[in-house]
C-alpha cells in the first residue's frame, strides 16, 4: 500500500513535470549548437524559464519519492510501474501541448504500456 501510494505520486508528478518541461524547452527554442558559450547562454534562459522551473519542481517530487521507495522495493518492480507515466505524459502532450499523435504512435505507446504492465508482474 505504501509502495502503491508512492508510485501514484511518482507517476502524476512526473507526467505534470514532463509537460511543463516540454513547454519550457519549446519556449527557449531548438538547441542546435554545441558551442560551449552558446550552450551557456541557452542554459541561462532555460533555468530562468517559469514553465521549466515548475517542471523541475514536479520532477524533484518524483525523484525524492523514487529514492524513498527504492529503499524497500525491487528496482525491477518499481521502475516498470513508474513507467505508466509514459501513457499519462502522452495524453498531456496531446491535450496541453497540442501534439499530433498518429495511430501508429498510439499503437506503439499501447504496446509499451502493456509491456510495462507485464514487467510489473512478479
Amino acid at each position, binding site marked *: 500500500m505504501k509502495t502503491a501510494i508512492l508510485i501514484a505520486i511518482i507517476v502524476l508528478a512526473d507526467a505534470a513535470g*514532463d*509537460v511543463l*518541461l*516540454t513547454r519550457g*524547452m*519549446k519556449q*527557449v*527554442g*531548438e*538547441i*542546435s549548437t554545441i558551442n560551449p558559450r552558446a550552450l551557456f547562454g541557452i542554459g541561462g534562459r*532555460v533555468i530562468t524559464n517559469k514553465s*521549466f522551473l515548475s517542471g523541475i519542481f514536479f*520532477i524533484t517530487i518524483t*525523484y525524492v519519492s523514487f*529514492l*524513498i521507495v*527504492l*529503499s*524497500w522495493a*525491487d*528496482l*525491477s518492480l518499481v*521502475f*516498470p510501474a513508474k*513507467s505508466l*507515466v*509514459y501513457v499519462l*505524459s*502522452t495524453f*498531456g*502532450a*496531446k491535450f496541453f*501541448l497540442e*501534439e*499530433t*499523435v*498518429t495511430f*501508429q*504512435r498510439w*499503437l*506503439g*505507446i*499501447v*504496446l*509499451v*504500456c*502493456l*509491456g*510495462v*504492465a*507485464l*514487467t*510489473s*508482474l*512478479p
Partner: protein
Amino acid sequence: MKSTARGTSLKKTILVLIPAIFAQAAGNVFLSTKMREIGNSGWLPLVSRALESPTVWFGTALLIISFVLFASALSWADLSFVVPAISAEVALNVVFANYFLHEVVSLTRWAGVLFISIGVVLVLQSGRQKAQQKSEEIPRSGGR
C-alpha cells in the same frame, strides 16, 4: 511553430536519447544497490546516509546527465515521441537489474521487455513517417 529540417531532427533526437537511456539505466542500478544496502533506517538517517555515499552521488550524476539530454531533445522533438522512445530504458532496467543486481526476472517480465521493444520500434517509425510527411508538406526552403 518553427519548421526545421525534420529528417535531421529525428537523427539528432535518437543520437541524444541513446546516451540518455544508458545513463539513466546505469544510474538506477547504482542508486538501487546503495539504497537497499542502507535499507529502512528511518527518514532522517536514510537521507543523511544517502548524501554521504559516493555511489548515490555518482548514480545521481548519471541521472542528471540523462535529464539534461532528455530536456535538450524536448527543445525540438515531440514529447509524445521522446517519452515512449525513452521507455526503452525500462527494458534496459530489467536487463540491468537481472544482470548487475541479480534480481530474479520471470518469463512474464521478459515478455514485457519484448512488448516494450516492439512498441518503441513502432514509435520510432512513426517519428520517421512524420518527418517524411513534414518534408513533403514543406519543400526545403533556403535559410531559416
